[in-house]
């Protein structure tokens, strides 16, 4: 019983937080439900990156590519092939998984910097191609994507969409946590700590890397599909390098070694972005473009230097430490 409660408590708290969001966001003028939806969608994509870059230590700056594959697949399948939206999400995820499997079979020939560069190049190539091809709508993109429907129920409005995204996020977190706490997850962590040590204890490096790469890609794909049906419009900006970097920042700021890092990171970074967009224009009249990345960059550097396990990681570490140093309840014997 005690074990069950300890296991479920984090999920319960998380569900509570998710349920609280609409109540808070609709009352605080700074936030809107659109923010909440965006946080949820990006948290799903970031979760994949946490597994890949955090646990397995494989830095990828190309996740936006898979996000984009999911978004474009949903867009193309629902607008050109008349597929129902849910089908589009599933097919998109499968396509993405296949693509990741394929790429993952040779991209891990390199590691460290080379891997980061390779994922970067991959992401950019895909973005560039998406802009040229006719099937992706070229530079104009694809408009008029139908809204998501669960059977006969069409999901309209940001509030309802948020509940959908929150549900998906919860499912994905449960999956991720189970993965992390399994034997596979332990090998993954070993891989992330030291590839040599892991290899010498018999971990199949290539297989593990490929699997986590596919998982990260699928998560990103689902997030991309959700995005496509929410905004009802995709173009090559969806695959932008900035998105890949944003995901990396969310993962890092939230905490690379904990599943909770994804939602925490997404929340913090998007809040920071909003705040920057309100406050920074007061500093200079020339201001323009995606200037909030100034804050992203600084936040990233600060977190890495002073709080390397991220905010969620730091908080969890704090909790663990308190539990360990907590005085024992005196028993009758002492």
């Amino acid at each position: 019983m005690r074990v069950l409660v300890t296991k479920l408590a984090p999920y319960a708290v998380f569900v509570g937080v998710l349920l609280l969001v609409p109540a808070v966001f609709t009352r605080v003028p700074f936030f809107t439900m659109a923010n909440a939806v965006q946080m949820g969608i990006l948290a799903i994509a970031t979760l994949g990156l946490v597994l890949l870059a955090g646990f397995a230590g494989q830095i990828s700056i190309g996740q936006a590519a898979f996000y984009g594959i999911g978004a474009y697949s949903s867009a193309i399948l629902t607008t050109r092939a008349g597929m129902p939206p849910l089908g589009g999400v599933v097919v998109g995820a499968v396509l993405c998984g296949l693509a990741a499997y394929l790429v993952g079979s040779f991209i891990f020939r390199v590691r460290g910097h080379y891997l980061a560069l390779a994922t970067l190049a991959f992401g950019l190539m895909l973005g560039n191609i998406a802009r040229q091809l006719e099937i992706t709508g070229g530079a104009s993109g694809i408009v008029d994507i139908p809204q998501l429907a669960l059977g006969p129920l069409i999901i309209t409005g940001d509030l309802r969409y948020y509940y959908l995204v929150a549900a998906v996020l919860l499912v994905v977190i449960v999956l991720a946590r189970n993965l992390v706490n399994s034997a596979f997850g332990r090998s993954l962590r070993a891989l992330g700590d030291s590839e040599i040590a892991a290899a010498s204890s018999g971990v199949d490096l290539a297989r593990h890397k490929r699997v986590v790469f596919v998982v990260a890609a699928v998560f990103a794909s689902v997030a991309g599909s959700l995005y496509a049906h929410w905004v009802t419009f995709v173009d090559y900006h969806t695959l932008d390098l900035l998105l890949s970097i944003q995901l990396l920042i969310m993962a890092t700021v939230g905490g690379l070694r904990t599943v909770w890092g994804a939602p925490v990171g997404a929340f913090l970074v998007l809040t920071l972005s909003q705040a920057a967009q309100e406050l920074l224009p007061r500093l200079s009249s020339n201001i323009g473009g995606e200037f909030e990345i100034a804050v992203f960059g600084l936040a990233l550097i600060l977190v890495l230097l002073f709080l390397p396990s991220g905010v969620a990681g730091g908080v969890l570490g704090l909790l663990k430490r308190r539990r360990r140093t907590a005085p024992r309840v005196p028993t009758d014997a002492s």
Partner: protein
Amino acid sequence: MSDNLQFIVTGLATGSVYALVGLGIVLVHQVTGIINFAQGEFVMVGALTFALLNEKGLGLVPAALSALAITVVVGVLVERLAIAPARKSTIERLIILTIGASIAIQGITLVVIGTSPHFASAFTAGAPYRIGGVVILRQYLWVFAVTALAVVTLWYFLTRTLTGKAMRAAAMNRDAARLVAVSPSRMSLLAFVLAALLGAIGGIVLAPLQAPSAGIGIALGLKGFTAAVLGGLNSPTGAVAGGLLIGVIESVAAGYLPSGYKDAIAFGILFLVLLIRPNGLLRRASSVRV
């Protein structure tokens, strides 16, 4: 035929700038082991500062010197604030740190200057030269000359001066270097200063050709990575050759394929080289160092 020659000449001009960027990357990588993802931003800061000052009326030389100075300051800040404190970190963390530095620089530029492009005048005014149907802008000649000068100076510095040799020593073996009183952290700072200088020089000669704005850093940085990787991340001459090659390929591709694909080609080359020949086109692949 003269069209192809034209593509090649233009490609060599932009390629020279890529070569300078690539050189900066190789230098930092050799000495510190990191790939400086902010290298492209050094080019941007140099180019934009120069163009802005030149536009406002400042002469060529003072504008260039100011641009160099400001870029070096940025380079020092990056090294001292982001790299040095994390010296003992894992590679993964360092990668993310330089990415953070890169977007911080770009973001701050966007805040201070905004997105508008700024126009610098060519170093010498005058009509372009036409040789056999090929147009050679006077600025191209400046690009070639300045790049050649920079490369030669760098070579001289690295091989003939004590500090340069010390830097190469630190690149080869940090601990051994320490033993002969060479400070790796000082060398790291020096490497960043040189990288900032090289980037800024590239930006300054490029500015009259391509009006710079806050966003040009990313693309230039990427072409620089490609140049550096093509030449093998540890070879300065390779980076130069790689840069020129990329410039030409890109220019020729733009002439024959829909213009949008030329970037995909550069990235595709990077991708392929990384996977097939991560040590560059010229060397044999080495085994993974344990």
